[in-house]
């Protein structure tokens, strides 16, 4: 029960954090994607199934704000979680470096995936802008490193 409540708190807290950062702390469209980062982290530490459920839920939250492509973020985060689950069998994603690198790559993959989904369903490539595409992977890599350290520190206690 406590685990469920804690998970729920993290689920809601992450959405709140993403909203707050996007609304008040993002500059030129560049902001850490906390929901993507946590999806990757959960998939890397707890397995792809939990990661996919969390990613799907958070994706729906991101999609609610969209006028079109309802379900695109949900699908993207679900796929990312699955791929992280696959990758963790080959790569040691418990280490900070590989995790940051994976996050860096999956961030770009996410941008491309969203663009392609837009191309398929709305005939337009969903382009987030150069600044966001260039800066966000670095921000996500830094964020996942910090989040992983916090996660590990908590688990060590």
């Amino acid at each position, binding site marked *: 029960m406590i685990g469920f409540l804690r998970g729920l708190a993290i689920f*809601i807290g992450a*959405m*709140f954090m993403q*909203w*707050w950062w996007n*609304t*008040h702390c993002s500059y030129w469209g560049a902001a850490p994607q906390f929901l993507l980062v946590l999806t990757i982290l959960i998939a890397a530490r707890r*397995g*792809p*199934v939990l990661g*996919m*459920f969390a990613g*799907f839920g958070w*994706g*729906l*939250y991101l*999609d*609610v704000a969209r006028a079109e*492509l*309802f*379900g*695109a973020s*949900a*699908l993207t985060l*679900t*796929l990312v979680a*699955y791929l992280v*689950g696959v990758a963790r*069998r080959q790569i040691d994603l418990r280490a900070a470096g590989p995790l940051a690198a994976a996050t860096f790559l999956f961030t770009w993959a996410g941008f491309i995936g969203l663009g392609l*989904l837009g191309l398929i*369903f709305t005939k337009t490539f969903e382009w987030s802008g150069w600044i966001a595409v260039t800066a966000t992977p670095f921000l996500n890599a830094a964020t996942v490193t910090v989040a992983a350290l916090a996660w590990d520190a908590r688990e060590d206690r």
Partner: protein
Amino acid sequence: MQRETRIANFVLGALTALSLLLLSLPLSTPVRSFKAGVGYLLDPLAYHGEAGYRRVAGSPERIRKLLQADIENESLRAELRRGEWLSTAVASLSLENERLRRALALRAPAGRFPVWVHVMERDPIHWYRSLVVDAGSDRGVSLNDSVLGPRDGRLVVVGRVIDVRQNTSTVLLLTDEFSSAAAYLSSGTLEGLVQGQDGPRLLMNYLHAEAHLSEGDLVYTSPTSVTFPPDVLIGRVVRVNSRHPFLTFQSVEVAPAADASSLQELMILRALPIEGEAKPPAYAEEAQ
């Protein structure tokens, strides 16, 4: 691991299918309803988050304004108090200025060194006995110096100095029972002795037994007085006492010209100059 992979594949298939369904379906009523439902669940997060953020974000500014208002309030209160104090001081100085202006027009009796002093203390229990002034040996005051006060544009007798300290002196009022002064009546130059009664009236004794006395006569200091200069007003006769068969003199009650309760500035007539002091301007002038 195989089981986890199978479950992962199944979940992936299910969620992907659901996502694609949401993506592929046009924004028809069911999709809009689903979206609205998700929005209903998740929108409060942003809504209440923003409201809370505004409240929290506005707090420092409100606290700052509150503190600023408090500081301004304190400052204005202090200014107001200063203003009230200044107003009172100005009023007091104005009155003092008026009194001193009148006093400057007075001429000191000849042969003395006048010094103007302020009344700084009086004992309400002994209203008619003594008061303390703000001049002492530092300003050349000495024992038994006579003390006069202004009244209606002239100097009148107040008392004499009985105690001298560094910066202050005690003046024994003429109304004290141990005070006395040689005096004469204006009507017939009859001499007598004015004595204090510890009250608002003085008693003038030793007047000639056959003299005709009348109320309203003015009483002045006599040239024979050791303490006071001559011809300074003491008061006015307000009652002629009935002649006593066993006494060889008459007496009258005198209302002192100096009002002990309203005296604020006095003139002490110093008998001796301070070392190096110039002769007083009124030295050669006629006495009042």
